[in-house]
C-alpha cells in the first residue's frame, strides 16, 4: 500500500463525494418517509383485503401481497423494485462517471499518460465506486433500522439486513456490467444504456414474466430473481443467492479491466 494506490482510489472518491452524499440522503429520506406512514397500515386488514381483490398476478408482479404486515409493507413500498432499482442506477452512474464519462470528456488522458497501467487506473475507480456503493447501502441500512424503531415496524433485523445486502449486490452486479462496457468501449451513452437497460429488463423479467405460464420459467435468468426470488424479508436467504450475484460481478469487472488495456483511449 502506498501513496500511488491511495491516490488511484482516493482521487475518484473525492470526485464522487457529493454524489455519494446526495444518493445517501435521498435513499435514506425515501426509506424514512415511507416507513413514517407504516403506523396507518399496521394491522389494517382492510388494505390487505383491498389488495386481495386485485388479480393475483398483479399482486405478485407489484409485490402487493400482505400489505398490512411489516414484510409485505416493506416489500411493496420499497424493496420489491424501488430501492434496488435506484441503488442499481446509482452504481451504474458512479461507474460511468468515473470511467467512460471521464474518458469521453478527455480528463482521463493526462492520468493515463502517467506511469500507471490502465488496469490499475480502472481498478482504482472500480474500488472507489464499490466504496461509494457500500457507503450508500450502509446509510440506507441505518435509515431503515432507525425508522423501524421510530415507527414501531417490527421485523427480523437479519431479514432486513439480508434484503439490503442483496440490493447492494444487485447494484454491484449492474455496476460491474457498466465496468465491462466501459472497459470495452468508453462511451457514456453505451454504458448508461446497457447498465440501466439491463436493470430495467431484469426487473420486468422478474415481475411480469410470471404472469404468463409460457415465459414464467425465464424469470430465473433475471438477477432480480437470484436476489429476491426467495423473499428475503420473510425467509432466510441461501448463500448461493449472494454468490450468484457476487461471482458474475467479479467476472464482469475482470472483463472490463482486461478489455480496457487492449483498445484505444478516446481523446477529448
Amino acid at each position, binding site marked *: 500500500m502506498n*501513496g*500511488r494506490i*491511495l*491516490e*488511484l482510489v482516493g*482521487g475518484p472518491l*473525492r*470526485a464522487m463525494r457529493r454524489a455519494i452524499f446526495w444518493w445517501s440522503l435521498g435513499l435514506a429520506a425515501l426509506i424514512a418517509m415511507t416507513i413514517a406512514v407504516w403506523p396507518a397500515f399496521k394491522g389494517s386488514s382492510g388494505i390487505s383485503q383491498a389488495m386481495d381483490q386485485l388479480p393475483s398476478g398483479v399482486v405478485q408482479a407489484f409485490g402487493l401481497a400482505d400489505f398490512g404486515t411489516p414484510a409485505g409493507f416493506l416489500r411493496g413500498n420499497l424493496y420489491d423494485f424501488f430501492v434496488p432499482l435506484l441503488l442499481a442506477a446509482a452504481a451504474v452512474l458512479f461507474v460511468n462517471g468515473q470511467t467512460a464519462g471521464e474518458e469521453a*470528456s*478527455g*480528463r482521463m*488522458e*493526462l*492520468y*493515463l*499518460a*502517467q*506511469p*500507471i*497501467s490502465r488496469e490499475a487506473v480502472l481498478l482504482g475507480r472500480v474500488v472507489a465506486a464499490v466504496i461509494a456503493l457500500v457507503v450508500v447501502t450502509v446509510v440506507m441500512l441505518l435509515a431503515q433500522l432507525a425508522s423501524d424503531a421510530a415507527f414501531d415496524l417490527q421485523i427480523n433485523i437479519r431479514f432486513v439486513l439480508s434484503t439490503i445486502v442483496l440490493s447492494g449486490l444487485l447494484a454491484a452486479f449492474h455496476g460491474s456490467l457498466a465496468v465491462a462496457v466501459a472497459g470495452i468501449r468508453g462511451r457514456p451513452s453505451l454504458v448508461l444504456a446497457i447498465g440501466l437497460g439491463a436493470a430495467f429488463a431484469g426487473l420486468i423479467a422478474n415481475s411480469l414474466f410470471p404472469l404468463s405460464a409460457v415465459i414464467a420459467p425465464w424469470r430465473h435468468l433475471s438477477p432480480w430473481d437470484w436476489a429476491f426470488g426467495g423473499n428475503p424479508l420473510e425467509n432466510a436467504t441461501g448463500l448461493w443467492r449472494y454468490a450468484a450475484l457476487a461471482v458474475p460481478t467479479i467476472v464482469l469487472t475482470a472483463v472490463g479491466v482486461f478489455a480496457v488495456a*487492449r*483498445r*484505444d*483511449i478516446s*481523446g*477529448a
Partner: protein
Amino acid sequence: MNTADTVVAIDGLVKHYGKVEAVRGIDLKVARGEVFGFLGPNGSGKSTTIRCLLGLLRPTAGRINAFGLDATRDGVEMRRRLTYVPGELRLPDRLTGMELATSFGHLRGGFDPTRRDQLAERLRLDLHRRLRDLSTGNRRKVALLLAFLFDAELIVLDEPTNGLDPLMQREFLAMVREARAAGATVFLSSHSLSEVQRAADRVAILRAGKLVAQGTVAELRGRARQRIEVWFEEDPPTAELQALPGMVDPVVDDHRFTATLSGSIQPLLSLLAHCHVGSMLVEEPDLEEAFLDLYDGGPA
C-alpha cells in the same frame, strides 16, 4: 544516429480510425538531448502520433518506442521516464492546481514542493484557485507546471502554448532550453512555425498523415517561403528586384513592392540598403504555404 543516442524511434507508423487514415506511414528518430519540432497543420496527424507514443492509441501498423521500450507493451516503464502536455487539455475542474500537483506527485513519486512553488511563481500561476475558475491560458500553465515538475528524460508537448500570452510563450521557450541544457529531450508538436524555429534543433513536417520533410531548422528555413512587402519613398528598382534569386511572383504597384521569397533574404537586404525604404514587412506564411514546395505535387 546511434541506437544508444535515440530516445524516440518511430518505424512505419500507421494509424487508421475506421476508414480515416490519420497517420499513413511515419519514420523518424529523435536523438537524446535535442528539441525536436513536430510541425504540421491541424489534422495532419501530430496528436495521433503522440498519442500512439504515449500508448493511448494502438498503432494499426508499425512500431513506436521510446528508450528502446515498446509504447504498447512496456508503456508503464516508458511513461515513468517522460512527461506530457496534451493538445486538447481537459483537467479535473473541481481540484485546485495545488491539489492536482499533489495528486500527480503521489501517482509519479519524486515530488518536490519547492520546485512546484518555483514553477508556479515563474509561470505566475495561482495554485490555490480551482481549475474551473482558471482561464484557458492559466489552465495551460498548470499542464506545463506538471510537465516540468518531475525529472523526465523526455518531455512531450502537444501544442503547449495554445492560449498563452506572448510573455509566457517566451518563458515557456526558456524552460524548454533549460530542460535541454539539463539533458532532457523535448518532443515539441506545434502548428506554429515561429515557435518551433525558436526552440527546436531539428524539425519534421507532417501533412495529411505523412512526413513531407525532416531536417535542421536552418535547412528548412532556407527552403521556406516568406511573403515580402516593401514601401519605397522613391521609385522601386523594379528590374533589380525581379532579378533577385528566389523571388516568386514579384509585383510593383506604384511605390509598393510585393513578392514571395524562397531562400535567403540577404540579397534583398543588400539591394534595399541602397534605396530609400519607408517600411518593410516580412510576413511568415502559414505552414502549408511556407513548405508548399516540400509537398509532392501540392495538396494530397
